């Protein structure tokens, strides 16, 4: 007896759910960084090529599998081949790691959002030191935004070994973030389907507002020109292509099982080809759109810093040589410097070491990604805008909505296989299962709110999903094409949707995409092996900047465990089922 499977209220909800899941923080804080690093406008070439060759086919494949099998990742891959249920289990394990660490970002977004309602913004001023004669030393050495992030938000310890205690403020924010996620997934697709209207559409509203504001900022054009001037020579760099492929891969969220889960709630006849193309195109164009916004903000910040630097130099010269106030400006600075060097060489040579060489290029060159971009660079730009509280609230609200949208996908990847299993649903209602998942993830996630929590966060961010996902998707593609049979799947798809499978998809699934993924895997493995020991960036409070340190042995062990626990599922489960089958076959006597 089949229980009716919950469905999306409307096709639109499914598309919006996929968009909300795929368009996440990576579009905002990773793509602009890659664009800047690998040649600006010319990075779009490998990016778009990889989109058509790798992103769209693999996305279509996952959606088609989910829609055909109408089960979560474990059930779907078990249907394809019982030996491959390990693939589904690996997806669930990776999704579990993902949910644990990803929601910490939402906690930080909450923290910044709540602090945006103050005047002045707390990260725009340094706190005073003990006797009120100056500012805190750490804040002076670093900047006020860095101080607020590293000291007030994270209260970071100098190294990963010094774990420190639990910080109650981020812990509270994490609990709130999990309650928010629970509220959204409580009723399954019924509630998720309504929430995704909000989580998918609101970031676009905020991005448009920011685009208008960003383009009108002073110095925005500097950033935009810097970003979009193509550096063609970067196309010859293999890293450019590898990073383009990786970015497309992870940006679409392939391999987690979320897409399979979402598609499993679809009507069998829905046109998943159209949806796949739509979602991947929207995802990539959002990345490009977000990078326009980011670069106009970069340009503003760089110009602001450049002009402050110039003003400091002007002040220094004016004070040392007692020149008339206002006589030295940015335009005649060089002439004044030459004049002073010639007329008063002794005093000039004293002052010369203190004069910083202000360069707009070097300000724009500071490429930042990840939490550093979102919480340090952006806040620095925001604090210099007028009505900074409004911009700050908008921005962090957008980050929050993007993060929760992705969390919905992550949790769906875990909950769908759990609710598919009759064993669990017979004992617990689905609200209790979701609640239990949120509770466990929250409890484990409290690790990231300790003083060394951000270092563990970086470990999870870098290593929990990268290699495992590549392997999972590779096995998925090979399983679908060669174990299940591409022709068989093609016939089933045609029977289901009524449309024939285009030769392009067949070619991509059968040869190009697996080869690409193998190439990526080889590249990453060789990269890890060649670098030798793994290192991380630790915050040094005495110097006010990041320093590179080596991971201790137990951290390396955790990294190894993270990668192994998901990738080993595939062979181990296959082996286990093989042994079970042999055991069963050996038991039953052959019928004469």
């Amino acid at each position, binding site marked *: *007896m089949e229980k009716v499977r919950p469905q999306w209220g409307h096709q639109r909800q499914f598309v919006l759910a996929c968009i909300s899941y795929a368009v996440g923080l990576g579009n905002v804080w990773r793509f602009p960084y890659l664009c800047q690093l690998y040649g600006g406008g010319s990075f779009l070439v490998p990016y778009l090529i990889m989109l058509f060759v790798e992103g769209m086919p693999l996305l279509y494949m996952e959606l088609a599998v989910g829609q055909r099998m109408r089960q979560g990742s474990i059930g779907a891959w078990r249907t394809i081949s019982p030996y491959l249920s390990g693939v589904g289990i690996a997806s669930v394990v990776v999704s579990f790691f993902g949910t644990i660490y990803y929601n910490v970002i939402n906690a930080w977004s909450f923290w910044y959002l709540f602090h945006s309602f103050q005047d002045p913004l707390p990260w725009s001023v340094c706190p005073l030191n003990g006797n*009120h004669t100056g500012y805190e030393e750490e804040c002076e050495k670093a900047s006020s935004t860095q101080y607020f992030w590293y000291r007030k938000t994270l209260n970071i310890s100098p190294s990963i070994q010094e774990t420190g205690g639990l910080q109650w403020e981020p812990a*509270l924010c994490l609990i709130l973030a999990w309650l928010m996620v629970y509220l959204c997934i409580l009723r399954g697709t019924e509630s998720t389907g309504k929430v995704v209207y909000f989580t998918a559409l609101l970031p676009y509203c905020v991005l448009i507002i920011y685009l208008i504001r960003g383009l009108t900022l002073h110095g925005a054009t500097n950033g935009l020109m810097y970003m979009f001037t193509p550096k063609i020579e970067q196309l010859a760099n293999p890293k450019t292509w590898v990073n383009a492929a990786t970015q497309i891969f992870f940006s679409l969220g392939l391999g987690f099982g979320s897409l399979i889960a979402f598609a499993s709630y679809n009507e069998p006849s829905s046109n998943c080809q159209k949806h796949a193309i739509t979602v991947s195109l929207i995802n990539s164009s959002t990345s490009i759109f977000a990078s326009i916004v980011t670069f106009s903000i970069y340009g503003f910040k760089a110009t602001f810093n450049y002009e402050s630097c110039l003003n400091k130099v002007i002040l220094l010269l004016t004070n040392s040589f007692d020149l008339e106030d206002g006589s030295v400006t940015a335009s005649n600075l060089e002439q004044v410097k030459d004049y002073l060097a010639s007329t008063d060489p002794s005093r000039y040579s004293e002052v010369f070491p203190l004069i910083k060489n202000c360069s707009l290029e070097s300000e724009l060159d500071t490429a930042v990604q990840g939490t550093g971009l979102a919480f340090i660079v952006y806040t620095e730009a925001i604090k210099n805008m007028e009505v900074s509280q409004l911009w700050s609230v908008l921005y962090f609200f957008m980050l929050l909505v993007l993060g929760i949208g992705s969390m919905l996908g992550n949790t769906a990847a875990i909950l769908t296989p759990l609710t598919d299993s009759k064993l669990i649903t017979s004992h617990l209602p689905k609200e209790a299962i979701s609640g239990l998942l949120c509770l466990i993830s929250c409890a484990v996630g409290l690790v990231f709110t300790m003083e060394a929590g951000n270092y563990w966060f970086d470990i999870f961010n870098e290593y929990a999903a990268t290699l495992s996902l590549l392997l999972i998707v590779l096995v998925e593609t090979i399983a679908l094409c060669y174990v299940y049979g591409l022709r068989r799947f093609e016939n089933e798809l045609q029977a289901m949707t009524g449309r024939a499978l285009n030769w392009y998809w067949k070619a991509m699934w059968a040869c190009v995409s697996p080869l690409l993924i193998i190439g990526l895997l080889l590249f990453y493995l060789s990269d890890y092996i060649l670098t030798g020991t793994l290192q991380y960036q630790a915050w040094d409070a005495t110097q006010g900047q990041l320093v590179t340190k080596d991971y201790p042995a137990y951290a390396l062990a955790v990294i190894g465990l993270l990668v192994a626990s998901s990738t080993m599922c595939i062979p181990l489960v296959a082996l286990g089922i093989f042994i079970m089958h042999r055991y069963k076959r050996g038991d039953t006597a052959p019928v004469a």
Partner: protein
Amino acid sequence: MLWLLFFLVTVIHAELCQPDAENAFKVRLSIRRALGDKAYVWDTNEESLFRAMVAFSMRKVPNRETTEISHVLLCNVTQRVSFWFVVTDPSKNHTLPAVEVQSAIRMNRNRINNVFFLNDQTLEFLEIPSTIAPPMDPPVPIWIIIFGVIFCIVIVAITLLVLSGIRQRRRKNKGSSEVDDAEEKCENTITIENGIPCDPLDLKGGHINDVFVTEDERLTPL
């Protein structure tokens, strides 16, 4: 004779007020940076206003109520605008200790700034650190208030959803248990094909359709 006295006085004055002299302070003004187009020119009138403000600050110090404007000496005025000043005692022979001058200026810093339309950064007394006003610290941090509000809203929403879910399930269970009582335990499923719900199979009892007669009864038994 008078000429000699005048010479002596200026020499003593010159000695008292010199750059890096004992108890002398350097002042630096950035009028154009602060006021832009509305900047005023620094002339001797402004200088005497400055001397008056310093004298005013010193008069507020106990034991120094007799400080006059003439006791404040300015020297080395540059184009920057910057100059040095000292405050002498009534005898005009030696300067007042730096500590007293420093504390007097610190206490009246705001008034001096306001007179010249400047602030701590544009009217600098080098070596007199300004007391930075601490940022306003509300008794309850604002973020906790907002956190509390959102937290309560979310908890209420979750409770409502969970309760309504429980109520729905109880209603469904009651509905299905009424039908269950009439039959044996088998689930009532509604299969939906092409969007049209089919009637569940009537398992209570079969109805024989007389149109379809079995083969056996048609043929005559052998």
